[in-house]
């Protein structure tokens, strides 16, 4: 859901950076409290995720580095630090230490009821905030400079969006883990973008795709032994993306190809018809018959195009002679005028 905003901001990698940046937060929270209570750990993740995000923004605004460089830098830095802490924790004589690495790849099976409630509540809050500031989010995403001239504090809106993306990521960590979280954020949004040209529908679809991959992924992994849930969920989301790329009616690869072929055929027909029109025009009687051979000099002409023109009742065939019908003549005459108005 919130992934839609990340995709549209061309900040897709941000999700990756945030989830990796959350790792040291988890480790530090564990070191401080010494307990494995998931809520405390997530708060740690949230804090370090936010720190990572604002460092990235700082680097981009204060230095010459591009945002992808800053993202990569922060991502590996925080992840490295997190790993360091994790190995340190594992050497400690604390019985609780085991299982912290589940945050790396996630383990939906470890979720308990209170975790699920927590997720539901936070999702609800996200939804309310999103609906309240819908207008502001939308305009900032589309045209940030312009938003500023309208008198909105773009920084506030930006921080709001970013914070909620961080929150969403941190919540997902327990399920799919640090490494795969960004896919969970982006895949539904990327898939949804293929199907619609409306932001509202896109966000809605992304939410559905996300939820669906969650449910289906869990179901598949539960039905088989030795299939961990997180990766399966991500794979299901990936299937959504692939299917969307190929089959979406307006942006999909398949329909693009079909449209391309159809256009080419139409053009062939039009070309032939226009050529016939040219010949027919030189005669008083438009249905004056001509030899098919006459068309041989003309490249676009084939038997099948001629057959199609007959089907459309534009042309009559008599032996090896053809003649334009009344409708055929009119259509041909309108062909070019029609095209030029369509171009407008």
């Amino acid at each position: 859901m919130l992934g839609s905003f990340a995709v549209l901001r061309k900040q897709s990698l941000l999700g990756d950076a945030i989830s990796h940046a959350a790792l040291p937060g988890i480790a530090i929270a564990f070191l401080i409290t010494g307990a494995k209570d998931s809520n405390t750990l997530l708060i740690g993740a949230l804090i370090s995720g936010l720190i990572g995000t604002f460092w990235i923004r700082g680097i981009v605004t204060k230095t010459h580095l591009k945002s992808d460089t800053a993202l990569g830098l922060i991502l590996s830095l925080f992840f490295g630090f997190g790993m360091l802490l994790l190995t340190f924790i594992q050497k400690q004589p604390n019985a609780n230490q085991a299982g912290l690495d589940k945050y790396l790849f996630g383990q939906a099976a470890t979720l308990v009821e209170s975790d699920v409630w927590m997720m539901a509540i936070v999702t609800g809050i996200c939804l309310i905030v999103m609906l309240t500031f819908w207008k502001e989010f939308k305009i900032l995403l589309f045209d940030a400079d312009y938003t500023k001239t309208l008198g909105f504090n773009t920084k506030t809106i930006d921080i709001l969006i970013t914070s909620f993306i961080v929150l969403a990521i941190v919540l997902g960590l327990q399920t799919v883990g640090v490494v795969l979280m960004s896919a969970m954020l982006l895949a539904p949004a990327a898939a949804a973008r293929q199907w619609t040209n409306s932001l509202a529908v896109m966000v809605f679809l992304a939410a559905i795709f996300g939820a669906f991959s969650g449910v289906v992924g869990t179901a598949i992994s539960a039905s088989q032994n030795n299939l961990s849930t997180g990766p399966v969920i991500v794979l299901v989301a990936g299937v959504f993306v692939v299917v969307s790329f190929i089959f979406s009616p307006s942006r999909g690869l398949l329909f693009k190809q079909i449209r391309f072929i159809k256009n080419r055929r139409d053009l062939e027909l039009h070309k032939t018809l226009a050529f016939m029109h040219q010949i027919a025009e030189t005669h008083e009687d438009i249905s004056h018959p001509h030899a098919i051979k006459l068309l041989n000099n003309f490249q676009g002409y084939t038997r099948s195009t001629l057959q199609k023109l007959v089907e459309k009742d534009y042309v009559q065939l008599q032996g090896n002679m053809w003649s334009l019908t009344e409708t055929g003549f009119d259509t041909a005459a309108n062909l070019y005028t029609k095209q030029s108005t369509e171009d407008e």
Partner: protein
Amino acid sequence: MTKQMKKIAVKVDDLTVAYNYKPVLWDIDLEIPEGVLMAIVGPNGAGKSTLIKSILGILKPIAGSVTIYGKSYEKQRQLVAYVPQKGSVDWDFPTTALDVVKMGTYGSLGWIKRPGQKEKKAALEALEKVGMLPFKGRQISQLSGGQQQRIFLARALVQNASIYFMDEPFQGVDATTEIAIINILKELRKAGKTVIVVHHDLQTVPEYFDWVTFLNVKKIATGPVKDIFNDDNLTKTYGINYKVSIQE
């Protein structure tokens, strides 16, 4: 003479802007009288867009101040509308032409409030004015460059401002669109609005505009086109011997 009696719409004092130590605008003083249709001309990198963006508070100047009708820009925001360069946004964004124009009403709506019927009506009227009403439901990526530019113009018109800043509205549009746009700008001037346009085509300056500012990091000259649009100023601005035949 009447021109001088007019109120000053925009006043810029000592404006200096720099990107990483390199000054882009150096000590700009500028007074734009109310009701003019002004072109800002200058070579690439002269700081034309930067000037507009600094006036609008999008960029932070190192020094200097901007006043709109004698008060600070922050207080007079609702009097000012901005048409950014077409290339500054992602036209693949999932939204329709009407939606983009509606964004012009967001400023007067303020936080949280949603655009309603009144805003929709205003947006439709603006679309009509720029001749884009038939395309209101069209996804913006499926509009031509000229149509996208007109959508941007409509979005500014909806704001119903007194001063319009436009960053290269004629960039990459065909002759028909250019004429349509300039007619709208002239109408705005007739209605007493002030219009400031970053412009590239020197040939059309005398035909389109009545006021001109030459800019190349520093301000070279500003004033009525018929007084100052001459080879001397063009040479000073562009650094080479420039000859433009101006028909009187």
